[in-house]
């Protein structure tokens, strides 16, 4: 087969100079990475703003409580609605991005089971500790520790170090919240999760930019 003749053959998109090839390679890589990204930066930033608004609003209503009584039913309803909307949008965006993709990067049934079990175990452990009178068990951040740890371990098994960092950040937010008091834990959760989401968006953007700059340097 004469491969050289393919470069000018009709139907292949015409001839290609080195600069054009570098630009096409960069453009295609950027586009594909953007399309395959299950958590795009815009979604992470939107979630960061929403989590700051939702949890920050609760903190504003509970910070003056002496003694602490917790958020009102209306606050909890807003929080549940936020979680539901966030979950729905995340699943829809992820499904769109990963359509047609299969293989190692998709979670296996066993991994999904581990994550769900960690989430349920975290909630049950907090409920048991709360019933036993352990103060920090009723803090909103405490429920983050076990799922965050499970996520970090799962990501470590996949050598996904950004995922490990996210999981550990969630664990740190949970631990710091335990020292912030019941009202302060809402502020820790709001600021901590917002910073973590913004950091994650920045990391993805930086990675894309680094690749783009490398190509830009290549083409001069």
């Amino acid at each position: 087969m004469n491969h050289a003749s393919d470069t000018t053959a009709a139907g292949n998109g015409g001839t290609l100079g080195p600069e054009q090839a570098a630009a096409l390679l960069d453009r295609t890589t950027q586009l594909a990475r953007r399309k395959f990204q299950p958590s795009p930066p815009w979604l992470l930033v939107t979630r960061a703003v929403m989590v700051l608004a939702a949890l920050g609003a609760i903190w504003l209503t509970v910070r003056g409580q002496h003694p602490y009584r917790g958020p009102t039913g209306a606050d909890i309803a807003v929080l549940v609605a936020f979680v539901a909307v966030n979950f729905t949008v995340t699943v829809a965006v992820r499904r769109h991005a990963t359509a047609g993709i299969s293989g190692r990067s998709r979670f296996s049934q066993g991994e999904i089971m581990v994550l769900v079990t960690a989430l349920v175990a975290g909630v049950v452990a907090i409920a048991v500790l709360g019933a036993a009178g352990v103060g920090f068990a009723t803090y909103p951040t405490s429920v983050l520790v076990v799922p965050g740890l499970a996520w970090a371990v799962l990501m470590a098994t996949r050598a996904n170090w950004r995922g490990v960092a996210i999981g550990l950040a969630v664990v740190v937010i949970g631990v710091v919240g335990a020292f912030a008091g019941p009202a302060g834990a809402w502020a820790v959760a709001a600021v901590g999760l917002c910073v973590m989401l913004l950091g994650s968006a920045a990391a993805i953007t930086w990675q894309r930019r680094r690749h783009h700059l490398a190509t830009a340097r290549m083409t001069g």
Partner: protein
Amino acid sequence: MSDNGLDPLIHVPTRLKIVATLAALPDGDTLSFTRLQDLIGLTPGNLIIHLRKLEEADYISSEKTRNGTVSMTTVTLTGHGRKALDAYTQALRDLLGGL
């Protein structure tokens, strides 16, 4: 290899797009033919021709699975294909750096 050191099999706009798109997937992942077609913007017949050339060189591998009456073709970049793209990128770098 051509005179300029660029792999002629990859140095074609359509095949460069195919290889670059598949390389954007994490290692070990496959992409369905329809999603690839959607991303590259080719007719099925044209895409098949290019995929066949890449498969003959062992740059990609494809697999056809059947679920009841529905059949699906998936495509993945092989280790050989990833190395070829790395070498192509390096050759481009050398060429453009030397201009």
